[in-house]
């Protein structure tokens, strides 16, 4: 089965139809939710905050408060400085936060509000609460750019150039980890890994507690959890940084300022960049890197998990080998997911993302075997309609048999009559979206079981007989 390259064309339209991306500020607000005591504030219209709250709440099923500077017509004409100040004051009064994370919107960017200047005039703080700004015009990039931009902005703010390195203990070698946009369960897993290695870590952001906490006895204005500002302030004394995401890594190489580059340039902290650890090979790389950085061996339990996983791959190999998948989502997520699928024998025939980093192809080429690259359609800046048309336009013997991605692909999957395995963000039509584990051997185990069982379910449903054994 050697597919020709001729079907590698995808339809092209001027409008975006059923976008496979969100706007830039959404990513920034998610990062701010992952900082202890931080309230996100959007400088723009009321609707931006409300829509993003709704979008995030529908995934996390938790309160997600995002304040707004609430533009009026006069604000749009005369500038938003006064509104922004009022909003900051009211957030400070209502929430007593430890930090206010201010992201701009298309509106405030277009009218040319100089937010750094406005914040500067307030001393970049209100009653001791730090005001941190990130520029997120929604007409550039996607939510992923907003996410990484906010992480970099926070690190930049609390670790200014020339900051004195006051504390670098020799025994407690602390590591900075910038995990990218992962699920709550992924973040919890990362914390477990570092704990098992006995390596102290600062993970930024970490919304795993805040956006998945217990029921309360008393209402909490700001949920507990998140990376403490005090820990972010000490990032400059870490011995090493790790940044997850292949595309992010390539972008950093090409000059994009990331949290890792800021710390390495200013304080000489080396930064290791790795793909998101999905699957055996990527997890091997991650754990080996951690072992090397920390000088500690990979804990026994992970070795056990790995060989259990490989054994499960063996048990299920026949059900997935040469099966064809359509995968989509954030570029970094798709790249790592493609790597995982390839190692179990699934061909990711369509790898699509709404992102537009221009390094998506390169990242996929780096993670996939050369023989596979020729068989797949790689598209960034893509929407669900183009994805659907691409899949529908493929000859029967090349068309995807399983779809893997967030819940926004459901309508497409339903029309194509191809089963959907829900992973990533957002999951709006199911419970537990934030509890999906993607990373590590354990995550791969769950993904693998889920994918195999989805294929088996489809086979069973289609079967006239409906066998009760595999």
């Amino acid at each position, binding site marked *: 089965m050697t597919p020709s390259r001729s079907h590698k064309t995808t339809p092209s*339209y*001027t*409008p*975006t*139809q*059923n*976008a496979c*991306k*969100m*706007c830039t*500020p959404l990513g920034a607000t998610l990062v701010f939710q992952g900082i202890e005591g931080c309230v996100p*504030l959007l400088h*723009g*219209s*009321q*609707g*931006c905050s*409300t*829509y*993003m*709250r*709704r*979008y995030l*709440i529908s995934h996390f*099923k*938790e*309160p997600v*408060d995002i*304040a*707004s*500077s*609430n533009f*009026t*017509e006069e604000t*749009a004409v005369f500038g938003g400085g006064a509104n922004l100040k009022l*909003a*900051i*004051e*009211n*957030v400070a*009064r*209502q*929430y007593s936060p430890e930090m206010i994370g201010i992201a701009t*919107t*298309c*509106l405030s960017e*277009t*009218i040319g509000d100089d937010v750094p200047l406005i914040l500067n005039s307030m001393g970049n703080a209100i009653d001791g609460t730090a005001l941190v700004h990130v520029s997120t015009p*929604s*007409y*550039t990039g996607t939510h992923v750019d907003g996410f990484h931009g906010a992480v970099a902005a926070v690190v930049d703010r609390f670790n200014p150039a020339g900051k004195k390195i006051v504390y670098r203990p020799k025994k407690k070698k602390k590591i900075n980890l910038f995990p990218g946009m992962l699920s709550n369960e992924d973040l919890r897993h990362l914390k477990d890994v570092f704990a098992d290695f006995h390596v102290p870590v600062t993970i930024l952001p970490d919304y795993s507690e805040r956006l998945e906490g*217990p*029921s*309360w*006895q*008393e*209402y*909490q*204005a700001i949920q507990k959890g998140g990376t403490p500002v005090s820990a972010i302030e000490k990032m400059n004394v870490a011995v090493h940084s790790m940044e997850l995401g292949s595309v992010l890594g390539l972008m950093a190489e090409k000059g994009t300022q990331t949290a890792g580059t800021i710390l390495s340039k200013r304080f000489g902290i080396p930064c290791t960049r790795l793909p998101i650890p999905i699957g055996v090979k990527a997890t091997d790389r991650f754990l080996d890197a951690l072992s090397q950085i920390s000088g500690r061996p990979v804990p026994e339990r992970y070795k056990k998990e790995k060989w259990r996983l490989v054994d499960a791959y063996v048990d299920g190999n026949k059900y997935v080998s040469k099966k064809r998948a359509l995968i989509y989502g954030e570029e970094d997520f798709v790249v790592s997911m493609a790597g995982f699928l390839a190692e179990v024998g699934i061909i990711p025939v369509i790898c699509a993302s709404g992102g537009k980093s221009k390094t998506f192809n390169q990242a996929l080429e780096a993670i996939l075997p050369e023989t596979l690259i020729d068989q797949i359609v790689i598209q960034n800046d893509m929407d669900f*309609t183009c994805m659907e048309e691409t899949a529908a336009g493929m000859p029967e013997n090349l068309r995807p048999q399983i779809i893997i991605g967030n819940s926004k692909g459901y309508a497409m999957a339903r029309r194509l009559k191809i089963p959907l395995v829900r992973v990533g963000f957002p999951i709006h039509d199911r419970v537990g979206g934030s509890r999906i584990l993607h990373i590590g051997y354990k995550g791969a185990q769950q993904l693998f079981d889920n994918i195999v069982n989805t294929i088996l379910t489809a086979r069973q449903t289609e079967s006239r007989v409906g066998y009760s054994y595999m």
Partner: protein
Amino acid sequence: MTSISVLKQREKQIYQKGKQPFEMECETKSLAGAVSQRACVFCGSRVVLYPIADALHLIHGPIGCASYTWDIRGALSSGPELHRMSFSTDLSETDIIYGGEKKLKKALLELIDKYSPKAAFIYCTCIVGIIGDDVDAVCRQVEKETDIPVIPVHSEGFKGTKKDGYKAACDALFSLIERNKAPRVTIPDSINILGEFNIGGETWIIKKYYEAMGVKVVSVITGDGRVDEVMQAGNAALNVVQCSGSVTHLAKQMQEEYGIPYIRVSYFGIEDTSDALYRVAVFFDQNPEMLKKTKELIKKEVQAIIPSLETMKKDLEGKKAAIYVGGAFKAFSMIKALRTLGMEVVLAGSQTGTQEDYEVLRQMCNEGTVILDDSNPLELAKYSVEKDADLFIGGVKERPIAYKMGIGFCDHNHERKIPLVGFEGMVNFAKEVHGTVTSPVWDLVPRRQTPTGKEGVI
């Protein structure tokens, strides 16, 4: 709960019956930084026009506004489903610099060619006004080229509140109706159903009642909406307006221009549904047969649902509810419906209520009830816990507030999938309420644990 304080500027938008003189402040812009539950002008327009299923809904702006409103509502269609798609011009930096008109025109022509919609609505988002795109001119050109109505909706997010968005949508709808150049002929015993969005098939339930009464429904604006049908709206004898906040402006326009009178009704709960149907029948009193049929219909329907309501009422008697809605009109019906189930409302609030609305609410509510205008998560949490609510009725954004505090929740917004209107809707509503209020999970939540030392103190 003493830890939650209320912002000073918001104090006049909060009223507790019996405790203070009634001077409710409302219909103002949301306070910056207050974390309002409101959306924006665009949202108001989008929700009103959303259910028109054979129209193209193109959102002109960067991607966010389209992403966050894709398939957002439970508005069903009996035919085409173009409304469930999300179309955006997805403006990028170069468009912002050089203007988005060319892209808009190209996008429109491509989409009209591809989907053959009966009309197109172009929603202007925040930056469209700022970068100075002449959307009206583009719409005129495309209308000429494609021969379908291409209507701009001036819904720039910052140009007011959600209510201004309703008005912009009404203007767009009226502009569509005006495109019907055929002479208007008033159809006897006919109505338009206004402000009904067919969430979970509600339009179909209401239409069924009117059919049984012998009333002809000319158009529904906009539930299970079709462009051709909306364009016939000028031929109805009466406009029956539900969800008055969103479409009263259109009803008024049609009264002024076409002389079609309107009445405001609600189809929520036994009392209000019966009242709505009676009032329509009374309006057509030259047809006495209709009133007779209406009485029979209501009698039959009410008898059919009373037994199951009575059964559920036994478990719900004395339970306390908090409600937070978009338009206050909805709250009136809800209070009555909850009373039918033996429940008491301890908190009632709305995003966009008027002075008169709040006065009605005040009169309807018991002593001690908290009334809120344009509230926020902290206030809603504070008062529903202080008032010890067993149930919260609201939308997606209110759900986690209730759940975190171990309070049952019932979705009364447009995302739900279950019809709640009419007599059968009342049973659905009761089941929803009963299901959540009597769930055993509340026995396990921290707030309901027996106080044990310091940890148990609420």
